[in-house]
């Protein structure tokens, strides 16, 4: 009988051990923070690099919102129908704070010149990053500035744009190009000005 008992226990142990399967896990590292560095701004035509000097830097936390749609209901939870017998949709806005501490960096304005023999100068804004980043379309209506590369990227990349030759002295329009990581943890504002052929430096 003792042998039978041991045999049964061995059989149950065998079943219990074999039943365990290892579940796969997410290898994602949540401790790695997004990084984005504007490395340099360089002209393809002249090869000149323009310094990027930080004007100010602010830390903040984002607040997000989203619309919540529901149907109009009475106190007992029953839907209140309109005169046509249809459900009435209500919209409310919910807000919540992000868990991310965001950094906002502004650079001092960079003024880009015009050259007599260069109708279109191309510039490369090189970024070093370990994150997805965006360079949204600028809000201003500026005709001398045109982005020619993709406005989204991942990791190290380049935002390329062209500058049209300006015949006047100084353009009134200023470009505010934003670049930010996809999780909005880092945001840069690059301000660009443009001088024309008649610009004398005063």
């Amino acid at each position, binding site marked *: 009988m003792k*042998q*039978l008992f041991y*045999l*049964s226990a*061995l*059989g149950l142990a*065998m*079943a219990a051990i*074999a*039943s365990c*399967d290892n*579940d*796969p*896990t*997410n*290898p*994602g*590292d*949540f401790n*790695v*923070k*997004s*990084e984005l560095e504007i490395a340099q701004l360089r002209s393809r035509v002249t090869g000149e690099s323009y310094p990027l000097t930080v004007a100010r830097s602010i830390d903040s936390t984002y607040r*997000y919102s*989203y*619309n*919540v749609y529901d149907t109009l209901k009475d106190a007992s939870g029953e839907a209140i129908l309109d005169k046509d017998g249809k459900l009435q949709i209500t919209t409310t806005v*919910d807000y919540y704070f992000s868990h991310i501490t965001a950094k906002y960096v502004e650079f001092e304005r960079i003024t880009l010149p015009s050259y007599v023999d260069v109708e279109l100068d191309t510039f490369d804004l*090189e970024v070093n*990053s*370990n*994150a*997805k980043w965006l360079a949204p379309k600028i809000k201003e209506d500026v005709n001398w500035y045109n982005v020619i590369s*993709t406005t989204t*990227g*991942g*990791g*190290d*990349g*380049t935002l390329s744009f062209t500058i049209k030759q300006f015949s006047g002295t100084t353009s009134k329009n200023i470009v505010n190009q934003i670049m930010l*990581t*996809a*999780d909005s*943890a880092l945001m840069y504002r690059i301000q660009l000005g443009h001088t024309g052929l008649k610009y004398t430096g005063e």
Partner: protein
Amino acid sequence: MKRYIIALFSMLAALVTMAQVTVTGTVYEPTGDTAIGASVYEKGKDGKGVVTDIDGNFTLKVSSDKATIIVSYIGLETQEIALDGRNHVDVHLKEAPNVLNEVVVVGYGTQKKINATGAVKTIDNEVLESRPISNAVQGLQGAVAGLNITNDAGGAPGAEMNINIRGIGSIGDGSDSNPLVLIDGMEGDLSTINPNDIESISVLKDGASAAIYGSRAPFGVILVTTKSGEMGTRVNYTGNVRFQQPINVPKMVDSYTMALMVNDAWTNAGGGAQFGKAALERLLAYQRGELPYATEAQSDLQWKGTYASWGNTDWYSEYIKKVAVSQEHNATVSGGNQKTKYYFSGNYLDQAGIFRHADEKYKRLALSGRVNVKFNDYVQFTWTSRIIATENNKPSLLNNLFFHNLGRRYATEPVYLPNGEYHPNSLIQPMEEGGRVKDKTQQFYNQANLVIEPIKDWQIHAELNSRIEHNPYTRQFNPVYVTAPDGSRQPISFGDTGRHKIDNNNGTFNVQPELEEAYYEKANRSINFFSTNFYTDYKLTFNDKHNFKFMVGMQTERYHRNYDRVASTNIVLPDRPFFPSEIGGESTMISEVNEEWSTVGVFGRVNYNFDDRYMLEVNMRGDGASRFPKNQRWGYFPAVSIGWNIAQEKFWESLTTVCNYLKLRGSYSELGNQNTTSFYPYYEKMATNAGQVVIGGQQVTILPAYTPFSSSLTWEKIENVGAGIDFGFLNSRLTGAFDWYQRTTKDMVGPALSLPGVFGAKAPKTNNAELRTRGWEFELAWRDRIGKDFSYSISGSISDYKSVVTKYQSSDNKITGWYQGKNYGEIWGYEVVGIAKSDREMAQYLAQHSQTAIGSKWGGGDLMYKNQDNDPAINKGAQTVDDHGDLVVIGNTTPRYAYSFTLEAKWKFIDFRAYFQGIGKRDYFIGDGNTCTATFAGYGGRPWQTTLFYDHLDYFRYAGSELGANYEDPYFGRLRTDGNNVQYCDRFLQDASYLRLKNLTIGFSLPETTKISRYVQKARLYFSAENLFTHSKIKTFDPEALDSNGDWGAGKCYPQYRTFSIGLELTF
């Protein structure tokens, strides 16, 4: 008077008593211990013996003191002892040199293993005993080197496995290279026979040993010998209860994680996120239990699902049970005496499936009976009948499409609607109520075997074999409905667009019901097989050294099968389906297949051995097969094999104590293959078809002209060459064998070279292709005993083969087809340089090697494919042998180095067996021919091919991702809805090799000294487990649940499972 009679009777009684002598004695084992339960009987009186008691003593009444007694004991050599006037004898038994006495079953007879010159392996039923298996094929996996049994299609109840001996034999168009399976000499189905009825299995691996079966057996033979009755009556019961647990079931990600992955896949391909912030918040709220329902009305007629619902369902957990319970019972009654022996058995298997909502059942009932009558010393007759009935009952929805859709179902789909009904996208209602498939098999075998021995050593055999088989089959699709938000009843789709097609090759219907369609299909297949074997053999010995055995015979076979199949969508009562009476109904499908083949064979064999040292065997067979044109119908197939028993030589005598058995052998044979898929390969069919012309609003039926064919089409020929060595050391405690072989299949049917377009048709196929297979096998076994109580054995085998196409006239030399020089199982794909860590790295790479031919919008996180040629673009070229672009051979899917090893031990009344089986090397690509399947990579090249498991989380992600950064060393590139990162490539080539603890059995036998043993001859309780542990590096799936032939790509089939069982064995 009365006194005289009494005196007469007393004298007679005294005489009788005096004539019987009482003999006593003790039987000892080789270890010196007494042998308990040894059998002792007078020679010629088998049924009237005794067994030794606990002290090894016996008392036996014999006819006289000059009688001879026989003492036998399991595992030891039987001894005959002449009493010579003694009435007390002590018997010391010796170890049986089992190799020298071992018998192997060969074609039309048996041979002593030491005299066998072919590659033959015989195993007994131990490999099948006490195992919770559904059929014998499962149990044989890994049991014999060179017998390759593979299972790619998971563990569906009633599923068939692939069998080949020494690799693939033919790639000829319409050819079949399965081995011939003979059950007691008649072709049978190894997957349905009751495994408990099997006595032994012999595998004839090479052409020489299979040659006697001619053109039915060019790729080997599996001979199954079933049990017969023995002396003394026995009643045996074995039964077990099994608990099946699915293994390697993928784990789907939760709904929130899935939504983030879907967003990534869409944005990485340049699209927009599918789940906005509100949707994501709602998913989390539902997961936290804050929302009662996971869906709401999308419109009056539809509920929200897929992207719009917010459930959290792991569909594999929802559909697959944790445990399914099955049972098997087997009872036999056997017995007999010197004149008559009988064996009757009954077996019942009830196997449940592991899918919830499906109520799958596979049942088998097998009854068999065998009676052997020995009329006299010259004539004996055996009759065997076997009835096997199986039924596979499952939902019509449980097909490959279901497995394809199971993984594609979003985790956001809820199981239930707010009204309590199942969500229509869950497909649970179609599974439960959408109709069933009932596939039955009824096989009735009858065999009559007459053996006449007119004089000693001359036997005449006459066998009549019959197999009648019926396969009633029904399939039904019932419309199912869900209550829509507005309260109306809306039909539920079964997961794909409707289609109704007939496969003209076999008459089956490929059907997916339209919405709301009631479909009923009924089919019956009947098979009638009849064969006769007449053969005679004669043994002749000269001078005690020259031993001949001659055998000649003839065989006939006739096989007829008929399929009738009818289906209709005009079903009035789905609960009680019947076909409508209608004329010219549009909703009816009908097909019939009616075909037959027959063969006639004459064969002869001569065996010669000189003094058990030098052996020669010559086989010759002539076959006529109905499958070939009249002028090609006959083929003649010779085979020769030789052997040399070195250990029997005089010069070896001094080494016998170390090496008691050493035999070299070699063989050569030429066999023909008549196993074409079609029974009429030299006919071309004109099959009716729906034409592209519409007359009167209906598509007309057309009869296209047949394809031209060659009238010189003839047999495939298989040439086998092999050599082997068998050995036994230390009185056969260590035994083994090594074989090397080469098999060349010539004259396979292949395509002819293209003809000019004016010919107006494809060039006819001819016998112009060749395939060569080379391989080897190695087996080793050690058996020993320590003391009286402990015995053990360790055995193992390993085998390997490679096949290459040595001749093929491909018209286009596509690497996706066959071509000269192609290794069987080749996988072509790209090589991957790595994953670009950033857009800049990818841009720099693309500047050198354009990847526009295989994708667009490449960036960081995507794969960089290696450029193999001078063309700067990465592409597939023309996918031909001469222009394959940047594709290279990245692997081979042939299972290599198939191995197994067994550890067995017995100590007193406890027995233990561990059986490991595995494949040493196998490459596998989980794809659909173009890209990875979604089940492997998460996305399969198209947005709707989405299957997201936790395994898929190891994809490239930048820092800041909501799923965490993963850019140092991810396995997958970025998830994308397009085909950029899912090409066939070496990076995703899977290592499908595995090691599996195939069976572990621990048994406890009732000791013979207990009181119960008076009533029960043997009682054994055992625990057994199948597929207990598996070690494999393949991602996500079980290495035997990949379904390489699936309609929807690999990785979408029934899961594999492990089984635990408790069993009881009783013998009365």
